[in-house]
């Protein structure tokens, strides 16, 4: 039985119980009494009324306005911030709490409706330090990534287990079908709930320290765990020399794929430890390890920037342009300033995000020109969120609406309204994005950015015996992290502090320092936990600047978080694309010519290129790509999980399949013919075996439900650019701390750091306290570009080695903690990531990229066009895996986000007004628990000898090929191809009928 107590419902509400000192209500009732015969109903508000709420077993007296939602009262008045707000419309489940014995959306529940009923929040689930079984199971199974949706997810599972002691997986899927996890953690949630259901009552409540040990069984595929060197040199001399030579530069270490490892000579920076190479046998690193911050996330104690509440903090709301293209004539904040609770107002002077004109327009007005719906115009800070929103609505904006263009085809026509009057440029962020410099621009089209290889493309086509030409299209996808963008900004004379929801605290620091002309030493940025980012959370953003201006004016901390609508409109998206692909091939399938002409829109920003796969995936003899940006009056794009690559894969990987069809060659064989990358070859081989590709490919389906299988692959880059530093402290009491200013957006960097320190110091990861997310710490890498673990762990390892050396001196055999205690002082190892051992310039070109191949099976209902992804096998290489649990979670999440992108996601804009009509989580569809396929994640170790930990990333590659694999599977299922994303029922039906849609 599930070990928790069901609360009984319905302490009946009485009139007396409800009205506590409500004199106003009483007199209103008396007035009405004369007018009607019925007993007049009690009236409350519109101002605050006294109520009592029973929350987590305690009676809490409160003053609330009748309009207050339960979640706002729980968070802002009772400071129970474990309950989150994701969409504020009941669609995402982040706000799930128990009212009585049922889970409800507390964002759609009025606080007054909860009077008289027991409310239980996530904070009420654990008993002191004892996690409830469902919480312990979430931690053990890694059923959390960024963790922002986790409290709601836990509550829904808890509610299920109260009603159903032995649920099936389908029951769990149904129970959490109202909880959106943008990281895509669902498969682990299913496992966790089923495990919790099996937990005997005696085990109810697992101590938080008592988590499964490293090495607990996981579904991780053992592929990469084979004996590292088969029949090879198990221990090289260099391997044995591990700790000796700080002074030597030449090292030999073992690199390659399992089964094909070979020693290699490389130059190693002085002072570096011997890399963990293919021969290293490690105790902690590489093991499936429950996250050390898991208990914080499952109990709601993890403090996201969204949850920061400072004394005297004000709440901000922003007035945004309702129009896509407009000139602001005046902004009048005088009415807003006199509204209740208002402490400061601010009118926006400068907008960050859009591309920048090279030559500033001469007739620049007082206010920035509006180039997208949702562009911030002015803002207000007030005592409560409701007051701020009331006041923001009272800001008067006199606006002249200008003609707009919101459709990529319309924007390319002559005479289309111009988004920019002249040439523009776009800088990138730490997460990627940005656009090439000095590119031609005409009308709304900026481009082409050309890349060429191998000679004349037209001649190559003319000489190709087999030719293929197709167009592929993708639409705009929004990041839709469940924690929206936002900050709490605190301006003080001795310096400013921003608590930001960010992937890069240093990028926030840089931007704020520049904008406010402050030295970096006076700008501190803190982000303990970030509720998802996916590339869009770099820099201070307009919201950061606005909040700080308001804080400066009001002399109080100001909280500004976007609502879901603004999140869709104003803080980034994945650009659209139109891709013309031409392939010329020999009859045996060899690619002779490959050309991409792409147009895409990043809205009023540049950077919609998608040529990465065409340029890098296959060595066609002659290659040419042209990328063009098409400007629209829509919100600026931002880097989004492998910028350009899912789009590019959708085009290229379908074209390759179409070529295979034309040649009568198996799609995998065609790839083997052209793609020599050793990791990808191995991925195709292993994946095909596990998926039973040949068998599945040959299977015929009859009836109206058609099954089909498809494959696609992708690549990403081994980035080695960003500075990374860390320090490891062994305190004089023997406790261990690792510190680095990196943000965790769900990849699990805390745990990866703890594992590396634990490995070096001979302790367990749970014995290492990891401090991150603060610019006061040594500078860490940005959390983007799939480089976080790869960049930071080498510094952490070196710092730990140095601390160890200092603690132990020459006695390398004793325990570091004992040694530190004996020394009677803390010892500290600091390291900045030493330059990679020639990194990109490595003579082996294949080490510059990482990637993976994915196999999917779909079921297409040919009567409705509805597509369901049934199963997926994904094989990915990521150097040396650090935490198999977290890597599996990232692969699962990449696939699930890819399923969502393939089948559902598109920003829908009303073309006549330029306004987005699905800026919510209701009509902007994101795949949920019941849309998730069975996923098998296979991790392929690929030792490259690039750093002392030899880690590579996984976050981005995991989502690149999914949409293309699904499209290929749909084509295989129905014998017709859908060349536009998303693969909606309308498009699938049209393809079945043979008409373009």
């Amino acid at each position, binding site marked *: 039985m599930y070990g928790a107590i069901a609360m009984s419902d319905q302490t009946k509400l009485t009139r007396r119980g409800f009205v506590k000192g409500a004199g106003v209500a009483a007199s209103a009732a008396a007035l009405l009494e004369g007018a009607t015969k019925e007993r007049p109903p009690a009236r409350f508000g519109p101002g605050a009324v006294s109520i009592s709420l029973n929350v987590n077993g305690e009676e809490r007296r409160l003053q609330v306005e009748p*309009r207050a939602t339960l979640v706002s009262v729980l968070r802002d008045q009772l400071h129970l911030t474990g309950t989150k707000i994701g969409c*504020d*419309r009941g669609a995402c489940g982040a706000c799930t709490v128990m009212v009585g014995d049922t889970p409800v959306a507390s964002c*759609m529940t009025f606080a007054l409706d909860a009077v008289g009923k027991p409310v239980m929040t996530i904070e009420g689930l654990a008993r002191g330090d004892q996690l409830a079984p469902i919480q312990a199971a979430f931690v053990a199974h890694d059923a959390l990534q960024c963790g922002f949706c986790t409290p709601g997810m836990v509550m829904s599972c808890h509610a299920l287990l109260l009603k159903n002691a032995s649920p099936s997986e389908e029951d769990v899927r149904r129970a959490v079908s109202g909880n959106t996890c943008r990281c895509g953690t669902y498969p682990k949630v299913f496992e966790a709930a089923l495990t919790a259901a099996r937990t005997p009552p005696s085990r109810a409540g697992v101590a938080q320290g008592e988590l499964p040990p490293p090495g607990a069984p996981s579904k991780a595929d053992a592929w990469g765990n084979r004996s590292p060197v088969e029949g090879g040199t198990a221990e090289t001399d260099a391997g044995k020399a591990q700790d000796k030579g700080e002074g030597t530069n030449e090292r030999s270490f073992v690199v390659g794929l399992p089964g094909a490892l070979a020693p290699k000579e490389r130059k190693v920076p002085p002072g570096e430890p011997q890399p963990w190479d293919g021969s290293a046998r490690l105790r902690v690193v590489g093991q499936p390890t429950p996250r050390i911050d898991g208990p914080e996330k499952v109990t709601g104690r993890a403090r996201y920037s969204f949850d920061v509440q400072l004394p005297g903090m004000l709440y901000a709301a922003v007035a945004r342009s309702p129009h896509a293209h407009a000139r602001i004539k005046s902004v009048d904040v005088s009415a807003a300033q006199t509204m209740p609770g208002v402490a400061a107002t601010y009118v926006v002077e400068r907008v960050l995000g859009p591309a920048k004109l090279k030559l500033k327009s001469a007739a620049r007005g007082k206010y920035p020109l509006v180039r997208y719906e949702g562009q911030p115009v002015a803002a207000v800070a007030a005592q409560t969120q409701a007051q701020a929103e009331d006041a923001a609505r009272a800001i008067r904006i006199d606006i002249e609406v200008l003609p707009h263009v919101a459709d990529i085809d319309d924007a390319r026509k002559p005479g289309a309204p111009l988004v920019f009057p002249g040439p523009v440029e776009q800088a990138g962020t730490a997460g990627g994005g940005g656009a090439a410099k000095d590119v031609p621009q005409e009308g709304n089209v900026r481009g082409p950015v050309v890349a060429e290889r191998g000679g004349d493309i037209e001649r190559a086509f003319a000489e190709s015996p087999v030719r293929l030409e197709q167009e592929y299209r993708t639409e705009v996808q929004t990041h839709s992290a469940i924690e929206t963008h936002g900050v709490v900004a605190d301006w003080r004379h001795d310096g400013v502090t921003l608590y930001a929801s960010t992937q890069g605290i240093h990028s926030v620091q840089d931007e704020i320092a520049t904008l406010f002309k402050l030295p970096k030493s006076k700008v501190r940025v803190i982000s303990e936990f970030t509720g998802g980012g996916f590339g869009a959370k770099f820099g201070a953003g307009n919201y950061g600047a606005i909040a700080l201006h308001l804080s400066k004016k009001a002399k109080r901390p100001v909280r500004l978080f976007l609502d879901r609508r603004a999140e869709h409109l104003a803080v980034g998206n994945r650009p659209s694309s139109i891709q013309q692909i031409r392939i010329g091939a020999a009859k045996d399938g060899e690619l002779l010519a490959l050309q991409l002409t792409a147009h895409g829109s990043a809205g009023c920003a540049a950077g919609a290129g998608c040529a990465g796969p065409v340029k890098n995936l296959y060595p066609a003899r002659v290659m040419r790509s042209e990328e063009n940006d098409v400007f629209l009056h829509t919100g600026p794009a931002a880097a989004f999980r492998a910028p350009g690559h899912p789009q590019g894969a959708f085009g290229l990987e379908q074209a390759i399949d179409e070529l295979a069809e034309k040649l009568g060659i198996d799609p995998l064989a065609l790839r083997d013919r052209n793609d020599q990358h050793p990791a990808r070859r191995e991925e195709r081989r292993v994946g095909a075996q596990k998926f039973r590709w040949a068998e599945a490919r040959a299977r015929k389906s009859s009836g109206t439900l058609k099954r089909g299988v498809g494959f696609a692959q992708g690549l990403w880059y081994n980035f080695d650019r960003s500075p990374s530093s860390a320090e490891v402290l062994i305190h004089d009491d023997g406790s261990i701390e690792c510190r680095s200013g990196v943000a965790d957006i769900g990849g699990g960097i805390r745990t990866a750091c703890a594992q590396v320190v634990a490995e070096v110091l001979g302790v367990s990861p749970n014995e290492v306290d990891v401090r991150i997310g603060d610019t006061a710490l040594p500078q860490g890498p940005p959390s983007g570009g799939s480089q976080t673990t790869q960049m930071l762990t080498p510094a952490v390892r070196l710092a730990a080695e140095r601390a160890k050396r200092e603690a132990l001196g020459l006695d390398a055999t004793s325990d570091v903690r004992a040694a530190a205690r004996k020394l009677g002082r803390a010892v500290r190892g600091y390291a900045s990531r030493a330059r990679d051992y020639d990194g990109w310039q490595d003579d082996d070109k294949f080490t510059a990229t990482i990637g993976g191949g994915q196999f999917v099976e779909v079921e297409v209902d040919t009567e*409705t066009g509805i597509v369901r992804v049934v199963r997926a096998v994904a094989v990915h290489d990521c150097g040396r895996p650090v935490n198999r649990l977290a890597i599996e979670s990232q692969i699962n999440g990449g696939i699930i986000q890819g399923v969502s992108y393939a089948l559902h996601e598109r920003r829908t804009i009303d073309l006549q007004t330029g306004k987005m009509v699905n800026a919510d989580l209701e*009509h902007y569809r994101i795949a949920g628990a019941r849309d998730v396929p069975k996923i098998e994640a296979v991790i392929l170790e690929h030792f490259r000898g690039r750093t002392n930990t030899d880690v590579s990333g996984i976050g981005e590659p995991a989502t690149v090929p999914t949409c293309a694999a699904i499209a290929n599977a749909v084509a295989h299922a129905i014998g017709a191809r859908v060349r536009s994303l998303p693969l909606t029922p309308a498009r699938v039906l049209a393809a079945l009928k043979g008409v373009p849609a």
Partner: protein
Amino acid sequence: MKAFTWVEPEDLQSAIAAGAQRGALFKAGGVDVGDRLKEHIDEPATLVNLRRLQGLDFVDVDGGALRLGPLVTLATIADDARIRKAAPALADAAAAAATPQIRNVATLGGNIAQRPRCWYFRKEDFHCRRKGGTTCFAIDGQNEMHAVFDNDLCAIVHPSGTATALTALGASLLLRGPGGERTVAIDDFFVRPERDVMRENVLQPGELIVEVRVPIRQAAYVKLMEKQSFDWPLAEAAVAPGAEPRVVLGAAAPVPWRAPKAEALIKGRKIDEQLAVQAAKAAIEGARPLQRNEYKIALLQTAVKRALLAAGGVA
């Protein structure tokens, strides 16, 4: 959300009196109303809370009918064994609606009387015909989720899946308002745009659904969604075969849309595959899709066919 006065009536009569006041809005579960308040689609002076009224969440099976109180939640309708036995089509419709969290509070009365989910209607910026404006933005706009029947004036689809099922079951509604009680057949409850484009049903100020009577008869409900975890229907069908058959399309028109030609075809006949296909084809006759929703016709046809086969016991 604009501030309002909360009215907490203790009995039905006082609720009706309060709801009849100018500027008053009824609230039961509060899901649809809360959404409208947050979007500033409605800015009532008073919100009349029905949720704590006693005796309006009854479930009663007597003789040939199921009687449901308006405050019965969708979760109860989906899970209650008596309802599932007496009216599985209704239970299926409730189970397919919204999310578990929403079903736990959303009520039957509120579900039937909810306002459209049209993405133009739900956005404050669009002063559409249904809000007293002069344009339906969907007719020439983004209309993939919109009506394929009766879409000349306003192209909303009726949002309630339970309404589709109840129409097929031939339910009737007992209403009570300031003027007393009346019983309205469900066919007469919903209002087409040509009659009044600003309302979806006949409820007068202060008038409430106080009972839903559902004849016990064979029926089936089918909902087709793009994704399977919380989605609005692309197409819906509820059918009840027999001597007085009903074939109803949902997500098809501003009201639950009956298909008389299909009904005539199946009248008194045992449903087999061939008849189901034929009737499904008849059901979509006269559909006039807009620019982006032609695909819905195939889906509606499939939904009808599948519902007929399910109701007829063939599939």
